[in-house]
């Protein structure tokens, strides 16, 4: 058995409010119903919010904010904490002024209002969205000193909307159509070429996230969800879908979001988000509290299907033990894993390694660099290492095993 009970000392609180005393909130009336018609988090959770790294980009309108995954549990990302990645800032579009034009190699072209879109048959799916630049700084070595910044460009919601397939079936796709341009109504006019097989498979024109209409920064009133594919293909504030027979090779799939190899050649259309996992507890923001029992927790996900399992190593990858998947295990969704650990108080190197139902196994950073070099910028899904120090502090490190 273990004896780690640092909790009581570490979370002392005001003695006046502790047993046997009766604190004021057990005596005085609290707030009324609808004190907050739209509720807000506890004032004691003010530390839980998105953060950005100003030096990562030239300006806040073309930038990123990171989800505080170190503070979250389960698999759902609450709407106010979904990460952001904008190229021209996020607009506030009046719903009634919104239009979606669907045109090109179709039997019928159409222009929709939001009311139209919401009348179409609806689906609800739980999917992650991850920016391929997530963990990008770590290609070069252990860079970011906090979990929010090493892995925070990933979020997961229940998305509701109409399957693009439904539109395609109704409007009639002309033979020869192979590619679709998805274009946003933001100041970047963000555009991506989507292969038609994917678009007609599980892609959704979504208007709701976790039950309510999209947030402005997630694309209100309409966005594309391309499950398992690069974050920025999930075009926000989508205004146009053009059906064509060739890819467009626009800026966000050529200048950016292409992956340059060691030899200088570059991969294009690197759509799939690979199988990836990270330990969220402990982490730099939440170090070890003491020796003994600690439930290692984390997240795993794959753009190619369901997570099948996660292994944990506490010795930098020499030995592995299976973790348990907790809660919902869904296709192209965040998946929570947990692992019971007894910490002996010594230095340890914690890693998680996931594998999906398609047989993909999360690689080490060495295995990744072996194939892709160090400068491909995107798609760093490598096994991540936390160095636990005797003090309980947790540092971001990279290791190599022989």
């Amino acid at each position: 058995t273990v004896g780690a009970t640092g909790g009581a000392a570490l979370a002392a609180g005001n003695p006046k409010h502790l047993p046997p005393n009766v604190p004021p909130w057990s005596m005085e009336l609290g707030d009324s119903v609808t004190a907050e018609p739209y509720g807000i988090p506890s004032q004691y959770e003010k530390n839980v919010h998105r953060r950005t790294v100003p030096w990562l980009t030239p300006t806040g309108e073309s930038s990123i904010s990171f989800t505080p995954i170190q503070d979250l549990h389960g698999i759902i990302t609450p709407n106010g904490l979904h990460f952001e990645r904008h190229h021209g800032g996020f607009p506030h579009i009046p719903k009634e002024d919104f239009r979606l034009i669907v045109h090109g190699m179709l039997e019928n072209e159409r222009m929709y209002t939001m009311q139209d879109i919401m009348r179409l048959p609806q689906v609800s799916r739980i999917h992650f969205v991850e920016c391929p630049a997530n963990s990008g700084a770590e290609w070069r070595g252990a860079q970011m000193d906090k979990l929010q910044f090493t892995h925070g460009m990933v979020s997961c919601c229940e998305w509701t909307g109409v399957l693009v397939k439904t539109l395609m079936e109704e409007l009639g796709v002309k033979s020869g159509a192979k590619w679709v341009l998805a274009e946003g109504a933001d100041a970047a006019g963000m555009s991506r070429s989507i292969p038609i097989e994917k678009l007609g498979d599980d892609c959704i024109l979504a208007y709701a996230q976790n039950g309510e209409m999209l947030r402005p920064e997630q694309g209100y009133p309409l966005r594309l969800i391309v499950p398992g594919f690069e974050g920025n293909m999930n075009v926000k504030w989508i205004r146009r879908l053009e059906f064509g027979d060739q890819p467009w090779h626009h800026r966000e799939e050529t200048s950016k979001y292409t992956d340059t190899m060691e030899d200088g050649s570059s991969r294009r259309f690197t759509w799939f988000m690979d199988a990836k996992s990270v330990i969220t507890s402990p982490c730099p923001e939440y170090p070890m509290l003491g020796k003994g029992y600690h439930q290692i927790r984390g997240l795993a996900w794959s753009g190619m299907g369901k997570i099948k399992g996660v292994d944990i190593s506490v010795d930098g990858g020499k030995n592995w033990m299976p973790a348990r998947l907790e809660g919902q295990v869904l296709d192209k969704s965040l998946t929570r894993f947990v692992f019971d650990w007894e910490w002996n108080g010594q230095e340890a190197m914690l890693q998680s390694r996931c594998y999906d139902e398609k047989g993909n196994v999360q690689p080490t950073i060495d295995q990744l660099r072996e194939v892709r070099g160090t400068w491909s910028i995107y798609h760093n899904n490598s096994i991540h290492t936390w160095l636990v120090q005797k003090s309980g502090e947790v540092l971001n490190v990279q290791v190599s095993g022989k």
Partner: protein
Amino acid sequence: GDELKYGFGVKPTKEQVAGWDIDIRPDGKGLPAGSGGYEEGEELFQDLCAVCHGEFADGGGGRYPPLVGGDPEHLSQEASPGQPEKTIGSYWPYASTVFDYIKRAMPFGNAQSLTDDEVYAITNFLMVENDLHDEDQPMDAKALIAIKMPNEGGFFMDPRPDTKNPHCMKDCYKSVEIKSKATLGVTPTGEDALR
């Protein structure tokens, strides 16, 4: 239309579509009528773009991306260790992307404000600065499509999955060495973490 199952929405008019149908493809489809000269483009660039991208379109040492610079022959680690310099001339596979992107997204803060002639002119300027066009020649659809970008052949389709972790469970390594550690305090705290 009668053959639609649900029938929601309306058939857009040609004009409605045309107002938003701004995309350009590598084969030139979508390129509008119009043209622009180098000097006009240079002037427009100085007026509308240089404040961010530098007078010479090379970033000017500032925060914004360079539009000129680098070398398509120097994208490998052997030639240029570290992050290769990727700009229009050194990296972009298709000339069409330049027109498309400037038309839809620039200048930053006043997107879709340029006329097509202006976009051609600025594109002329940028292609000249990237050693891809003759400054005495106008830039129009035909001239743009004629430009073969040096790095067009540098791209290939995604070959993933490309790693094969043997999924070892026991005694996978003899030894493990720490190769790098993140520096504490490198990421912002407090108000600095909010732009």
